[in-house]
């Protein structure tokens, strides 16, 4: 007898009888029974499991939020309790994909509203109802660009998140797309000269990040002006979009990004959620599920999945993507979070993240550190620390501070640098502490 499985012996007996077989194994007569003795323990009880998991959780060091200075794709932000309380409602958590729209209006409306919010943030005309994460969203955007113009070369800025680039390469490898990396100028922006010269008739898409991986705000207007009619894909961070002019304004074709900052815990990196928005003219090339508004038999407003012919259920190998299970719950968390914070809350967080970053940059400069780039940055910025920055980083971690990402992990040439991140959770006190701890390395 198991608490999750209701069958009593008597019921099993009755059911077998109804089926007309003698015993349970008669139901497995087609099956070669190779797994009679799995080498895994028998089931435990809740209290033992809870204490096992609690001790595993304790083996991970939780850093106090204000002492986190690392971003690089996963950000520490405040998450209001109301977001958690609502997002954990079983009506959301234990529902499936809304295959029966009439009993899934909660899901469908929440996702429709999410799509609207993503459109508002990005300025684009249509957003899908979620991808797995920012990295796979970018990969899918590149495949989408390929479907749009059939060309093979992707120009990708060096200042796009390295894991996003790696993921995109993995996806694109099977389609024989080729990649060319566009270097940065001294301001930390994608080098416009190189970019302009790299565009040719084989160019499928240009990919830049806004603000870019090093925190520098790319000039999307200039980029668009230098790449002719090539598909422009922008990777964007959602909070910054509340104060930066949205990519749509500059003729962007596809905007992708990760929704983690909007109310999702760091979760050791997952699940987060990818967003993907585009223009109506590209919608049939777009991957992922779309929710649309409609009416019921009585004329009442309602929501349904639309344009499903793009998806794998119908077109199968010709589908715009294989994505089926997506990250709907996380998208709804984004929507609840944005509803709670409102446009002013988002802007306020963005302003504070920006102000904190500039305060901290000033303090670091005072301490004698140099910034790697001189372009305008948002809430992340690269700083030259010390030759063996990685080990000072590890040391300050033991002192309870999650310091700037060691850039040497991804860029040999920036081995002495760290990527600093601030958000609204950092305080003057925590920033001053960071400066002090890192300052020990200044000679």
């Amino acid at each position, binding site marked *: 007898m198991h608490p999750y499985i209701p069958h009593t012996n008597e019921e099993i007996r009755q059911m077998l009888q109804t089926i007309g077989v003698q015993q349970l194994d008669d139901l497995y007569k087609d099956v070669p029974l190779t*797994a009679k003795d799995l080498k895994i323990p028998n089931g435990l009880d809740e209290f033992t499991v*809870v204490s096992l998991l609690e001790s*595993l959780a304790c083996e991970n060091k939780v850093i106090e939020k204000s002492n986190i200075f690392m971003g690089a794709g996963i950000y520490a932000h405040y998450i209001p309790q*109301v977001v958690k309380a609502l997002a954990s409602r079983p009506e959301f958590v234990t529902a499936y994909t809304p295959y029966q729209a009439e009993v899934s209006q*909660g899901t469908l409306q929440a996702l429709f509203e999410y799509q609207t919010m993503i459109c508002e943030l990005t300025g684009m005309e249509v957003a899908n109802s979620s991808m797995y994460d920012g990295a796979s969203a970018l990969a899918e955007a590149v495949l989408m660009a390929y479907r749009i113009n059939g060309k093979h070369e992707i120009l990708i800025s060096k200042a796009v998140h390295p894991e996003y680039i790696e993921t995109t390469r993995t996806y694109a490898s099977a389609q024989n797309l080729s990649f060319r990396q566009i270097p940065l100028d001294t301001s930390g922006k994608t080098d416009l000269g190189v970019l302009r010269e790299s565009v040719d008739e084989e160019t499928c898409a240009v990919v830049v990040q806004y603000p870019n991986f090093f925190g520098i*705000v790319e000039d999307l207007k200039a980029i668009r002006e230098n790449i002719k009619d090539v598909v422009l894909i922008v990777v964007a961070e959602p909070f910054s979009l509340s104060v930066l002019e949205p990519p749509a304004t500059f003729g962007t074709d596809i905007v992708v990004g990760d929704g983690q900052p909007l109310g999702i815990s760091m979760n050791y990196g997952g699940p987060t959620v990818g967003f993907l928005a585009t223009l109506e003219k590209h919608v049939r090339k777009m991957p992922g599920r779309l929710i649309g508004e409609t009416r019921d038999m009585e004329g009442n407003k309602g929501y349904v999945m639309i344009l499903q012919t793009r998806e794998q259920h119908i077109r199968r190998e010709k589908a715009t993507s294989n994505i089926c299970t997506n990250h709907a719950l996380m998208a709804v968390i984004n929507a609840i979070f944005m509803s709670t914070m409102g446009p002013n809350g988002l802007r306020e967080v963005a302003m504070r993240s920006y102000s904190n970053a500039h305060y901290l940059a000033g303090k670091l400069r005072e301490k004698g550190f140099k910034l790697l780039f001189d372009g305008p940055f948002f809430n992340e910025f690269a700083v030259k620390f010390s030759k063996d920055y990685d080990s000072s980083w590890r040391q300050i971690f033991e002192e309870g501070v999650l310091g700037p990402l060691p850039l040497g992990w991804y860029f040999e040439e920036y081995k002495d640098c760290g990527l600093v991140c601030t958000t609204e959770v950092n305080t003057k006190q925590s920033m001053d502490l960071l400066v002090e701890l890192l300052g020990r390395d200044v000679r």
Partner: protein
Amino acid sequence: MTIFERSVTGRVGFKLPKSDIEKKEFDLPSHLIRQRPLNLPEVSEPDVVRHYTELAGKNYSVDKGFYPLGSCTMKYNPKINEYTAALDGFTQIHPYQPWEFTQGALKLIFELKELLCEITGMDEMTLQPAAGAHGELTGMLIARAYHLSRKDTKRHIALVPDSAHGTNPASAAMAGFDVIELKSTEDGLVDLEELKKHLNDEVAVLMLTNPNTLGLFEKDILQIAEMVHKAGALLYYDGANLNAIMGKVRPGDIGFDIVHLNLHKTFSTPHGMGGPGSGPVGVKSFLGEFLPIPVIKKVDGKYYPDFDLPKSIGRVRSFYGNFSVLVKAYTYILMMGKDGLTHASQMAVLNANYLRTLISKFLKIASPRICMHEFVVDGSDFVKETGVKILDVAKRLLDHGVHAPTVYFPLIVHEDLMIEPTETESKDTLDKFAKILEMIVEEAKTNPELVKNAPHKTPVRRLDDVTATKKPIYRWRKTI
């Protein structure tokens, strides 16, 4: 009412702490500073609560009742999973923290991998993929990498039965393969003749779901495996239906080279309106070197992520996978254990056969055989006889407070209902469902309009999805 319509300019739902840093003006070229209005809702905390509470009230869910969506394994999701996954030590850690200080997380990933390898009979496994289809893509990229590594460059074909889930051909195509559909036998099984005809040195992989989407176990699986391997191809296992066979048979033992699992199905992590899920991919040892990075390794009792794998297919996503989902699956497996998982599969199969027997009294079952964890109703005669469509039947079920089974899938049966009760449902629930279905079949004869116009008691009536797609409305807009 949408959340946008609840908005009132100036209303707030949240307050930030005081900041002790002076606000800095944006020092950016003015054309990069936002000029477009940002129309997000402005609401109070009570507004947010009422809005999403109202939406929640319009959703069917497993906590509410029977959810027999075939192929989806909508089993009960234990509450303990939500508790463990929400522990601070799991949710409040950054993926780039020094790995010496995330040993608990890495150990969990490592041990979960070991457990899943044992359950499936595979040698190595990645827990990176975010869903089943993502696992399929990963698995197929591994197959591709394998053949290429052997310079076997002409294998461009993936064979996929016509009964397969749509993600199978879609993933194969995304991985660069040309897809050839294999026609199934009348029973929905792999047709050995058909298979033989298509197997040649251009075939890279055969993708199978076993039990297949009709709920039948491929009885000739050992022979199929032999044929595929002899032809130099690999055998891929779509684990969506693993819930039928845990503790009974392991895909790895019967010739499968690559396996993906759906933790959100079999391991109850749960579905969240369509995700997040998790789609681990297991492989036989000869394919281990192709797994995506990072791979979690254990050396001297310490766990660490290995990024240095020259033959890896590369990265398939950011960071370490859907970690919180993995916590839930791990919790579930510890709770169930060997005995519980085996019992779960047996009861899933018992439930399916019991319900199949009940339903066979008034509807045609696509295959007369003993099924595994699910079965398919062939409604074509019913439709012919009554003029009522299977979709109508599905909608009418909603009026009775149960969710409809999967409809119109697999494609090889027309007007079908695909029913997967799962092990967490009681005999009582199945008896009631069969009665409701029988009643609807009766109604279809005596009062077809009632069924055709269903549902009648849901938050909205039948929705017009044709117009919705023809004249799509993608987002809310203020109506003036």
